[in-house]
C-alpha cells in the first residue's frame, strides 16, 4: 500500500462555543487514492475538510500531512506542503476578473514562467476560463464560477486535494470533466478527499468510502461495497435510480 | 418639592461657601472663548477669596460643560439651580447659549449677569434679570469706527464696502451695525455675504470680494473664519484701504495664524490689557500667575461679571437664591454704575450696557487701541499697508 499523506485522527471540532460538530473523526487518505465522504446534510463533512486544510483548528485530535503534525497550522502553511481545498458553494472573488482569480491561485508562487505554464494548463482543462478571462467572476453563471474555482485550486499542482461537493450546480458535461480530473489526479499520485452528495457516482469512482453522520464515521470500506450495500443504498443514497 | 418657588430655604444655606453655578462651552464650537471666560471667572474667584470672600463666605465656582449645545446649557442651569441650590449663577458664552440659559434663570427668579450675549436679540426676549457685562451690544461694537470713517475728508472716505459674515447672531450683529451706519451715509455695499458655520473654504468668498475691489472689507467673524478670510483675501490680493474683523483678531493666536497679515487689521474690543480701570492691572497680573500667558478679552468679560455681582452683593448684603435677595440684587444692578476692568458700566431697562467698544489695530505687530481718541495708545493707520 502507498504511503498515508493525510490523516485526521480522533478530531473534535466545532464553531464558537456551540457543541462540537465533529466528535472523534478519523479519516486516512493515501497517495493515489480517492476517499469519498458521504452523509446527510449537516453531518460535518465540510467541517472535516476545513479542519484538514487548516481553516478551522480542532479542539482536540491531530491532523497529519505528509507525515508531519500540522494540527493548528494556518492554511498558507499547508498550501506550501501541497494541499488544495475547493470550498462548497461559490467562493470566487466576485468583484475580480477571472484572470485575477486564477492568478491568485498562484499567489505564493513568484516564478512567472511557472505561473504562465499553469495558466495555460488550466485554461485548457476548463475552456470557459479562457473564454471569460477578462470578465468579473461574480457575473458568471453558477457552474462557470465553479470551474474558475477548480482552475484556481489547480494552479499549484497540489499533492492533496480536498473537494467539497465539486459537482454541485454543474451540468453533466462539466460534472464529467470534474470526475475525469479527479481520476487523472489519482493516476498521477495525488491524494483526493472528496465530499459528494452525488454519492452513487462518487462511490463508483472512489477507492474508499466513509459514511459520516453526527460528526463520526459510521461505516467505511471499499467504495464499491458501500455502493452495493442495499440497506445503505436505501437509507443514504435514496431510492434506486430510474436507470 | 424642596425647590418649590417660595419654599423656605434651609438654614444650612446661610452658611458654608457661596456657590456660583456656571455652564460654559468647554467643548464644541465655542470651546476656545469658553475657556477664556472660565479663566476670567477663576481669577475673580481667586481674588475675592483672597479678600475674604463674599460677605465673609468663601466663593466656590461650579462649572458644567454644555458642549456649546443649547439643550445642555438649559439642563445645566436647571440642575445647578434646583439640585446644587447654588446661590448665584453667572452666564455662559455666546448669544446662542445665553438666551436658553437666561430663560431658565429667569423662570427660577435668579439674577443673570452674563459675559458674552451681545447680540441684539438677547435683549428682546423680555428678560428682566439679565445684564450684559461688557461695554456695548454687538450692533454698537463698531460705533467709533463708523464715526471715524464718516468724519474722513470726502476724498479719503471709502466709497465702497464689502461685508462677509458668519451666520451667527453676534457676528452678524457687529458687521451689520457698521453696514447700516455706513450705508446710510452713502458708502456703497458691493458685497454682502453670509456663510454658514460649516464653511471651511474662504477663497471663493475672497474671490467675490476681490472682483468687487472694495475700499473697505468688514468681516463679521468669530475666530476660525476670521483667519480663513484674512488668509484668502491676502492670497487673492485684495487690497482694501481698511479691513476690520470682529472677535478673531482680539485673540492671542491670531497674528501667528495669519502669518504677518495681521498688520493694520482693525477690530472692536471691549477691554485693553493696558487700561487702568478698577482692578485691571491686578487682574492681568494674577491671570499671568495662574495661567501663564496673557489675559484676553474673554477672560476680562468673565472677570467683569464677577466684579459687578460682587459689588451688588456687598451693597445689598445678601447672596441667597431666594426671590427677595435676587430681586434686590437685580434692582441694585439696574440702578447703579459699576467700576470694572472694562470701565464704568451701567445698564438700560433691558439689561443692555450703555457704553461703547474701543477699536484696536495691529500696529507694527502690536495690538494698539486706536479709537476713541481719549483711550488711544497709538494713532490709527489709514489706509492700511498692502497684504
Amino acid at each position, binding site marked *: 500500500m502507498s504511503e498515508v499523506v493525510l490523516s485526521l485522527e480522533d478530531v473534535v471540532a466545532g464553531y464558537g462555543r456551540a457543541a462540537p460538530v465533529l466528535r472523534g473523526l478519523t479519516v486516512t487518505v493515501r497517495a493515489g487514492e480517492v476517499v469519498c465522504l458521504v452523509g446527510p446534510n*449537516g453531518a460535518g463533512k465540510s467541517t472535516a475538510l476545513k479542519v484538514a486544510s487548516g481553516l478551522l483548528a480542532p479542539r482536540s485530535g491531530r491532523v497529519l500531512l505528509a507525515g508531519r503534525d500540522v494540527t493548528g497550522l494556518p492554511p498558507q502553511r499547508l498550501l506550501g506542503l501541497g494541499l488544495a481545498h475547493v470550498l462548497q458553494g461559490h467562493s470566487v472573488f466576485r468583484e475580480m476578473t477571472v484572470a485575477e482569480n486564477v492568478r491568485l491561485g498562484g499567489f505564493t508562487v513568484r516564478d512567472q514562467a511557472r505561473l504562465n505554464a499553469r495558466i495555460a494548463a488550466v485554461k485548457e482543462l476548463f475552456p470557459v476560463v479562457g473564454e471569460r478571462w477578462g470578465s468579473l467572476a461574480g457575473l458568471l453563471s*453558477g*457552474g462557470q464560477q465553479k470551474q474558475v474555482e477548480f482552475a484556481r485550486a489547480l494552479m499549484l499542482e497540489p499533492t492533496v486535494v480536498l473537494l467539497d*461537493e465539486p459537482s454541485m*450546480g*454543474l*451540468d*453533466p458535461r462539466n460534472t464529467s470533466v470534474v470526475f475525469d480530473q479527479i481520476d487523472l489526479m489519482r493516476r498521477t499520485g495525488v491524494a483526493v478527499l472528496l465530499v459528494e*452528495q452525488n454519492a452513487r457516482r462518487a462511490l463508483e469512482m472512489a477507492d474508499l468510502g466513509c459514511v459520516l453522520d453526527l460528526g463520526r464515521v459510521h461505516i467505511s470500506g471499499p467504495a464499491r461495497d458501500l455502493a452495493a450495500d442495499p440497506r445503505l443504498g436505501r437509507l443514504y443514497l*435514496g431510492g434506486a435510480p430510474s436507470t | 418639592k424642596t425647590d418649590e418657588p417660595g419654599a423656605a430655604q434651609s438654614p444650612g444655606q446661610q452658611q458654608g461657601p457661596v456657590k456660583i453655578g456656571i455652564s460654559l462651552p468647554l467643548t464644541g464650537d465655542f470651546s476656545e472663548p469658553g475657556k477664556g471666560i472660565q479663566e476670567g471667572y477663576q481669577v475673580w474667584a481667586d481674588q475675592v477669596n483672597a479678600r475674604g470672600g463674599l460677605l465673609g463666605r468663601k466663593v466656590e465656582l461650579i462649572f458644567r460643560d454644555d458642549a456649546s449645545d443649547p439643550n445642555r446649557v438649559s439642563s445645566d442651569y436647571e440642575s445647578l439651580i434646583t439640585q446644587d441650590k447654588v446661590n448665584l449663577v453667572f452666564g455662559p458664552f455666546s448669544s446662542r447659549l445665553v438666551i436658553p440659559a437666561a430663560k431658565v434663570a429667569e423662570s427660577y427668579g435668579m439674577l443673570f449677569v452674563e459675559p458674552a450675549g451681545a447680540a441684539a436679540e438677547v435683549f428682546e426676549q423680555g428678560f428682566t434679570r439679565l445684564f450684559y457685562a461688557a461695554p456695548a451690544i454687538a450692533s454698537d461694537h463698531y460705533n467709533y469706527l463708523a464715526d471715524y470713517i464718516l468724519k474722513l475728508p470726502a476724498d479719503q472716505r471709502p466709497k465702497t464696502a464689502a461685508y462677509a459674515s458668519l451666520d451667527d447672531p453676534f457676528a452678524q450683529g457687529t458687521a451689520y451695525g457698521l453696514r447700516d451706519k455706513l450705508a446710510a451715509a452713502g458708502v456703497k455695499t458691493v458685497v454682502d455675504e453670509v456663510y454658514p458655520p460649516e464653511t471651511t473654504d474662504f477663497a471663493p468668498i475672497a474671490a467675490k470680494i476681490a472682483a468687487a475691489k472694495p475700499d473697505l472689507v468688514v468681516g463679521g467673524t468669530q475666530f476660525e473664519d476670521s483667519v480663513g478670510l484674512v488668509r484668502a483675501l491676502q492670497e487673492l490680493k485684495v487690497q482694501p484701504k481698511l479691513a476690520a474683523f470682529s472677535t478673531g483678531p482680539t485673540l492671542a493666536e491670531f497674528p501667528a495664524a495669519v502669518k504677518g497679515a495681521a498688520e493694520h487689521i482693525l477690530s472692536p474690543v471691549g477691554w485693553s490689557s493696558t487700561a487702568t480701570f478698577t482692578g485691571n492691572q491686578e487682574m492681568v497680573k494674577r491671570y499671568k500667575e495662574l495661567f501663564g500667558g496673557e489675559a484676553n478679552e474673554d477672560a476680562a468679560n468673565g472677570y467683569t461679571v464677577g466684579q459687578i455681582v460682587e459689588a451688588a452683593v456687598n451693597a445689598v448684603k445678601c447672596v441667597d437664591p431666594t426671590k427677595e435677595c435676587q430681586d434686590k440684587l437685580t434692582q441694585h444692578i439696574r440702578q447703579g454704575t459699576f467700576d470694572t476692568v472694562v470701565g464704568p458700566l451701567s445698564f438700560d431697562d433691558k439689561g443692555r450696557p450703555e457704553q461703547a467698544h474701543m477699536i484696536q489695530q495691529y500696529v507694527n505687530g502690536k495690538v494698539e487701541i486706536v479709537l476713541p481718541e481719549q483711550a488711544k495708545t497709538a494713532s490709527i493707520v489709514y489706509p492700511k499697508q498692502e497684504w
Partner: protein
Amino acid sequence: MSSLRTEGLTKAFGGVQAVSDASVELLDGKINGLIGPNGSGKTTFFNIVTGMIRPDSGRVLYRGRDITRHSPHRIAHAGIGRTFQLCRIFPRLTVLENMLVAVRRTRLRELLAGLRDTGEVERARHWLRRMGIEHLEEAEARDLSYGQQKLLELAAVLMAEPDLVLLDEPAGGVNPALIDRIVALVRDLNAEGRTFLVVEHNMDMVMGMCDHVIVFDRGAPIAAGPPAVIREDPRVLEAYLGV
C-alpha cells in the same frame, strides 16, 4: 392552455447574451423541466419571469396577461413563486417567522391584524408538517442544515399558495435521501393542481419526474418535449447530455 408563456425574451449583460429570443410555453398543471449547460441562461430566465431583471425585449405572459414589467411582489401576488439556486432564507428569523413572510394578496386590514389571531400560523404549521420540519418551528433558520433550509425555502414559497412554482436546482447540494423526499413532494403538490418549472442538472431527477422538458442552449430554447423524446434528441445530446 398554458399558464406561462414568454415571447422573444432577450437579455444581455454587457457583451454577454444571457438570454436571446427565448419563446417558451409551459404545460399547465404539469411538472415542466428546464435543462441546459452552465451559463445557458436558466437562472436569468427565472429572474426575468419573476420581475427581478428587466428584459431588453420580449414579453412574459401569465394566464394571458402581460406581466413583463411588473415588480417582483406583484408577480408573486399573481401566483408565481420561486426558489433560488443558492438557497435563500431569512437567517435570523425563526422557522415559523420565515413562514409568515409570504403574502399573496395584501389588504391593509390583513396586513395589520395580529398574525397569531388569524389562521396563518395554522397554515404555516401545515406546510412545515408536510416538509417534515415542524419540530424546528422555533429554531432560528440559520441553525438548520442546508437540506432543511432548502425544505424551509420551499415551504415558505408555498405559503403564498402559488399556482406556478419555479424551482432553481432543488436537488443541488442535497443528500440523496432528501432528493427523494423533494421529488415526492413536488409530485404531490402537482397532483393538487400546481404547475412546476424545475431547473436541475440531476438528470435522473429531471427525466424521472418531469412531464415536459425544455432545453436551453446559449440563452434560447433548442428543444422541448416529453423526457423520452428529449433524451434521444441529437441537438440536446450534443449541447448538453453528450458526454
